[in-house]
């Protein structure tokens, strides 16, 4: 039984301690013949454990990798995913195995699973930065340049689109080994769409432009370090094998700084909520019946048209518009948005809260025009509606509620506290002891060790103990078994009494001669009894039954 539990818990423990996960893959599923193969390694590990980059091996071969980025799984988690890229040389068409990748994290080595990848016919689109092919062995004049910049307003305002790009300029086939393009990662900006790559030719020079469109999120100055690329020029010989030219070509771009200005405070309309103009028209239409019962849904269609950033323009905040607060409730779900050419359309749900409301008031939409650096304001027309209370009997005019005709001010008195109060937190709670974490499973090997030690101790102890020593009861039983008449009976009876006295602590050794026993107390009674038995035995008569009975009583009485 113990063995079964040992096996089960060992297996269970093995499954639980696996913390680090390593995966490897080839990035491009459409690999072309003889083109460098880019792969990616992802290592999920605890942030406190360091990945030993030097230890990364592909099969048994050390692998040169380049760190890409660390991604934390969540702000509260200690787990991060580290990404490393690597390159393999180009290969002819066929199916290949990507051996397992091993890496040392902390003090342990972890492995990914081996996978396969397929190299097909030459890909239609060559890998960067190859534009047109240069099948010439004269590579002495091979050059590589990198330019990094951006297109868009300067300074930009939050919500405006900016195109960030790098331009590769080269005049030979180049196999890149390092590409660091920080501008395209664009931290602090929101990416719009994916990267674009365009190739062109100017005389003997090829140009590749890699660009990324982003949207400015917040005001500030965003500085990007210089980009860096390096690679080897090469030509493909008649046998189809690439011949590389040394030394390695390197190119750096200049650092780029993008300034995003905050919206000016002067003249900012109360309804402004971040729309970047200019916009030419703003209209609101009622797309549902105009006669409703209070609480029923009104469907509004809001259209904003202009040459500004239509895609990101937000719906005006209806909650605070004059005439809306307290009179209408907007749907809880965000409005449905649709962008067509230069117009953005919103479908908005609105519910009148009181009977007697006569119209959907004019809605104000304001925007900022970066060209003129001024704000513009557009207003929709009021829409007449009829709101009835179904419970009001016919003929009684409903009480009319007057809507606020000014911008809604925040109420000065705070609302009552709705949730239950805070709990007392003690500093001790803020540190997680090991027994409240997965470390508790260390108890399993510890427990198994304890069991194993006990088993070992028991096995080694048993032979040393030898046979169990006989008690006085055992000896007396042997005497009875020998029979009253036999000489062994007297010998064993004598021994049983002496043993009894020793067991009870009345004498120190069983080897004391009978005549040396004390004359008082139980030893004295034993001495007297045994002497009488001896005397009777040597008279040649059979032992008196009463004497035997007395011996039994005395034995039990000691």
């Amino acid at each position: 039984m113990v063995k079964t539990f040992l096996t089960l818990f060992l297996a269970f423990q093995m499954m639980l301690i696996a913390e680090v996960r390593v995966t490897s893959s080839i990035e491009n599923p459409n690999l072309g013949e003889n083109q460098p193969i880019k792969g990616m390694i992802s290592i999920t590990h605890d942030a406190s454990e360091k990945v030993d980059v030097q230890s990364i091996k592909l099969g048994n071969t050390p692998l040169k990798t380049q760190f890409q980025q660390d991604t934390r799984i969540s702000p509260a988690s200690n787990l991060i995913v580290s990404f490393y890229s690597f390159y393999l040389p180009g290969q002819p068409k066929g199916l290949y195995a990507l051996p397992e990748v091993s890496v040392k994290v902390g003090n342990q080595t972890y492995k990914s699973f081996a996978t396969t990848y397929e190299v097909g016919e030459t890909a239609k689109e060559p890998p960067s930065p190859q534009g047109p092919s240069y099948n010439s062995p004269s590579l002495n004049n091979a050059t590589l340049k990198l330019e990094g910049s951006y297109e868009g307003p300067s300074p930009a305002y939050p919500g405006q689109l900016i195109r960030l790009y790098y331009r590769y300029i080269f005049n030979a086939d180049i196999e890149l080994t390092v590409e660091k393009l920080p501008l395209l990662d664009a931290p602090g900006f929101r990416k719009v769409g994916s990267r674009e790559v365009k190739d062109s030719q100017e005389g003997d020079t090829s140009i590749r432009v890699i660009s990324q469109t982003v949207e400015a999120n917040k005001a500030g100055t965003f500085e990007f370090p210089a980009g860096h690329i390096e690679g080897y020029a090469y030509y493909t010989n008649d046998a189809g094998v690439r011949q590389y030219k040394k030394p390695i070509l390197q190119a750096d771009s200049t650092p780029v700084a993008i300034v995003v200005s905050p919206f000016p405070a002067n003249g900012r309309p109360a309804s402004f909520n971040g729309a970047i103009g200019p916009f030419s028209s703003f209209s609101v239409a009622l797309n549902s019946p105009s006669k409703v019962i209070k609480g029923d849904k009104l469907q509004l269609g809001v259209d904003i048209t202009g040459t500004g950033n239509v895609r990101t323009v937000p719906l005006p905040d209806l909650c605070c518009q004059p005439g809306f607060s307290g009179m209408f409730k907007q749907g809880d779900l965000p409005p449905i948005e649709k962008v067509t050419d230069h117009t953005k359309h919103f479908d908005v749900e609105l519910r009148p809260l009181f009977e007697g409301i006569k119209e959907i008031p004019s809605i104000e939409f304001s925007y900022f025009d970066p060209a003129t650096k001024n704000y513009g304001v557009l207003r929709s027309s009021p829409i007449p509606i009829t709101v009835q209370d179904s419970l009001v009997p016919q003929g009684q005019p409903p009480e009319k509620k007057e809507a606020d005709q000014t911008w809604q001010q925040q109420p000065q008195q705070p609302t009552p506290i709705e949730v239950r109060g805070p709990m007392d937190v003690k500093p001790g709670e803020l540190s997680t002891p090991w027994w409240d974490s997965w470390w508790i499973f260390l108890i399993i090997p510890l427990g198994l060790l304890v069991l194993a030690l006990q088993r070992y101790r028991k096995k080694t102890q048993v032979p040393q103990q030898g046979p169990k020593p006989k008690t006085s009861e055992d000896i007396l039983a042997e005497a009875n078994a020998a029979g009253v008449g036999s000489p062994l009976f007297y010998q064993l009876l004598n021994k049983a009494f002496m043993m009894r006295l020793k067991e009870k602590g009345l004498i120190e050794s069983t080897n004391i001669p009978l005549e040396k026993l004390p004359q008082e107390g139980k030893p004295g009674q034993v001495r007297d009894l045994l002497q009488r038995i001896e005397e009777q035995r040597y008279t040649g008569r059979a032992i008196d039954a009463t004497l035997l009975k007395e011996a039994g009583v005395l034995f039990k009485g000691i």
Partner: protein
Amino acid sequence: MQSLLLFILAFQFFNSDPPQDLLQKAQSAYRQGEQAQNIAARKEAFNNALSAYLELEKENGSGRLFYNIGNTYFQLGEYPLAIYYYYRAEQLLPRVEDVKDNLQIAKAKLSLPPDKSQEVWKEIVTLHPWLSLPERFLLFALFFALLIVLLSLYIWKPLPLWTFLAVIIGCVVLYLGSGLFYTRYIEPVQGVLIKAAPLFRDAGEQYARVIEKPLPAGLKVEVLDQRENGTWLKILDPQAEIGFLPHSYIRLLEN
């Protein structure tokens, strides 16, 4: 003299208790917020409480701390984040009614539907409605220790009673261990949307939407996979729709 000065400095260094100070600061700021007489004062106090609580969260979390952070976000009108922290508090304090009540109030603020109840077998395996993960660790450790004691007795004195008890306790340990294994390796990670998020058919904004309406903020979803270096997540919403959304829209509820 110099060594005395060093000793005093060292004593003061080790004796200072930043978490205690921060806790007092946070809790007094929260009380000030509750008692504030105008909105500006209330906002300021709750913001002070929030920054102190979030500073404490960097050290480590506890159910009560998460609950208090949830409350503070609630008072500041950030209901999706309040919901997120209430869920985290609920993971660690599954039997505390205050957490459940405040979570329901916050969800009602966003008109969110009640959570679907978990399948019974999952509840039985994970014991989520009754025990937090640390409590399950402790229970597992206690029963395992008891099992070791019984097996030790069996080794020294193989009585049928020890065998019988060890089998029963062993079954309990296996049950608790299996639940923990499920939680660690099989149970899907859940997350809470902290803002309304469009659901795309693939990892990128250029793809079509799975549903026209965005998923509401505060919604709890299951995270199935990650794409694009973790910047996009594949999720399953309560209506059984599967799609992709950017990681920045979601906060994960990890065990």
